[in-house]
């Protein structure tokens, strides 16, 4: 209540602290871009910080939120174990918390807004498995080993492959979310296994390098060509949609950056206003599930985007030019 700008007192806009997890990936930059307009729309005052993918910085940022008397906090802790003490602190001060993208391992929050990372891996696996007809070799560019989202995608992809497409060999390459490492390892792998027919990259970080390697090795053929190498990316940034259109890649998972921003703030405002939620379908096409005692999670839809929007392995997909995709918003 001491802060001059935002004040919860008597009908003023509530002050909400939003911590951005990092500003060096396209996906999170899109998220950062969507937050302020959403805040204006919902009528909340913002305090933002950036923890640069450093959990210690996040904790310190939460301290500054507390000292600035925020009424609610939205954050996206990339390390889901380390956040527990801070959650406790916020809970002690009755400050509601919404986490985006990740679910804390321990401790409770008002709502988790995320897409299911395990589903990303499974979707990519089903797409590649179907397109390759259940046999052949695929390479997977894992993100950082230290990322929970990366590990979820890796595990679910591997599990799905083992279960549904035992005929497919998967080369998993650790890349630390670095494009140059991915490109080098792709090249090395192509040298030993030139018959790789599928690529799954866990984020768009490896996009350009992968395409460049394919181009250089004359492996870029239109999807209709039997020599085509199937590429599945992840994130749904505009560049990926463009590449799908041009037939350079085949699919991507569109992480709803815009909805992360909107619903993160929506739930925190709701908490400040004293609303509560229960498991079940929502008004925006997603489902709230209770993932453990006292922890609700709004699992936003993360559609698989393809060139034709056809159904793959029984799952619906979205066409690359669908206006609903955030990557197509101007």
């Amino acid at each position, binding site marked *: 209540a001491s802060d001059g700008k935002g004040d919860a007192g008597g009908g003023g806009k509530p002050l909400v602290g939003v911590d951005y997890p990092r500003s060096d990936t396209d996906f999170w930059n899109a998220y950062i871009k969507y937050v302020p307009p959403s805040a204006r729309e919902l009528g909340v005052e913002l305090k933002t910080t950036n923890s640069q993918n450093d959990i210690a910085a996040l904790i310190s940022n939460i301290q500054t939120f507390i000292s600035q008397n925020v009424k609610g906090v939205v954050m996206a802790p990339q390390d889901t174990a380390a956040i527990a003490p801070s959650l406790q602190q916020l809970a002690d001060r009755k400050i509601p918390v919404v986490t985006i993208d990740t679910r804390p391992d321990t401790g409770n929050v008002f709502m988790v807004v995320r897409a299911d990372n395990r589903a990303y891996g499974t979707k990519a696996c089903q797409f590649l498995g179907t397109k390759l007809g259940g046999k052949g070799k695929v390479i997977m560019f894992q993100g950082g*080993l230290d990322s929970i989202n990366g590990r979820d995608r890796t595990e679910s992809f591997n599990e799905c492959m083992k279960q549904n497409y035992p005929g497919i060999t998967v080369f998993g390459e650790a890349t630390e979310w670095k494009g140059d490492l991915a490109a080098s390892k792709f090249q090395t792998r192509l040298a030993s296994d030139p018959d790789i027919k599928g690529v799954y990259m866990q984020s768009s970080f490896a996009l350009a390098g992968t395409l460049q390697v394919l181009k250089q090795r004359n492996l870029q053929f239109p999807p209709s060509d039997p020599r085509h190498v199937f590429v599945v990316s992840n994130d749904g940034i505009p560049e990926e949609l463009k590449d799908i259109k041009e037939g350079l890649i085949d699919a991507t998972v569109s992480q709803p950056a815009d909805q992360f921003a909107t619903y993160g703030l929506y739930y925190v405002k709701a908490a400040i206003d004293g609303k509560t939620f229960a498991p079940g379908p929502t008004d925006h096409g997603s489902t709230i599930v209770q993932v453990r005692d006292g922890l609700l999670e709004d699992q936003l839809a993360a559609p698989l985007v393809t060139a034709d929007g056809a159904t793959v392995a029984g799952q619906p997909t979205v066409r690359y030019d669908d206006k609903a995709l955030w990557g197509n918003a101007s």
Partner: protein
Amino acid sequence: MSDTLVSTGAPAPTDRPTARRRMPALARLRDLVLVPAIVVIAVVGQLVNPVFLQSDNLINILQSMSAIAILVLAETLVLVTGKMDLSLESTFGLAPGVAAWLVVDPAITHGLGVDLLAGAWGVPVTLLVGALVGAFNGLLIVRYGLNGFIVTLGMLIVLRGLLTGISGGSTFFGLPPSMSYLGSASWVGVPVSIWLCLVAFAVAVVVLGFTAGGRALYAIGGNVDAARAAGIRTDRILFLTLVTASVLAALAGLIQAGRLASIPSGQGDGAIFQVFAAAVIGGVSLNGGKGSMVGAFTGVLLLFMIVNVLTLAGVPAQWTNFLNGAVILVALVLSRITGGKAQE
């Protein structure tokens, strides 16, 4: 270059004696050379956001810097002797990481850890790992005379890889209370980590300034042959310094682990840049023999105040790093200039 540049002024003979006499006062003031900068940042911070000087926020600054500050203390010890230890940033993560690996129960942590030891072993094992790393560094550097920069650069990579290896890249959590105590408890309303950090620096000030061992570090850093000739057991002291620094890094890692109630496999990654920046801004010489604990402390304090002010000011995320870097660069340059002559 200094020859030509330094001496362009008026004829020296007249002002030389005064220049001499001014020196000692300056030398003592050198430790406090950052105080004006700290005051400026504090004033700016208060103007930017009145929250800045509230005790809550000040405690926040001190707490968030406490682990790194101890790392800076450790590096300062090594730098004073004229060596370098880059691997401290990895020890910072590895030491508590190994302890966690040995004590946490895979049943709770989804298969992480081996649950070999009881939780109470966490702290001793952490410090032991620190000591072992330091001893290994010492063996290569002191015993076999290998270049410290090179050895610890290699160790930085190996130790980080080791932590990734045992953790599989995951974060250790579910630490025993003994391991999280230092980083999470409070005494009289002030986090233990702050007390620990302040006490560590106070002890270091006394040791470096008023004990034979501490002065030996300066002697070794200033001229190792001369130190040996004066009867200082240079090898033993260098070795002990490296071990002490690694143990301190392990302790710092423990504080960090307690604060996060977990140990990410990337703990400490890249911290060495910050550590060097803090030490050097604080007047510690990379050539050895020069630098004080008070200076090093003001160096870390300044860096963390800058970050805090930038956060409070709500600087656009994409420019935070640049501004942070620019302030560090300016501080580095100013500290060199006020710190006296150009040096290599």
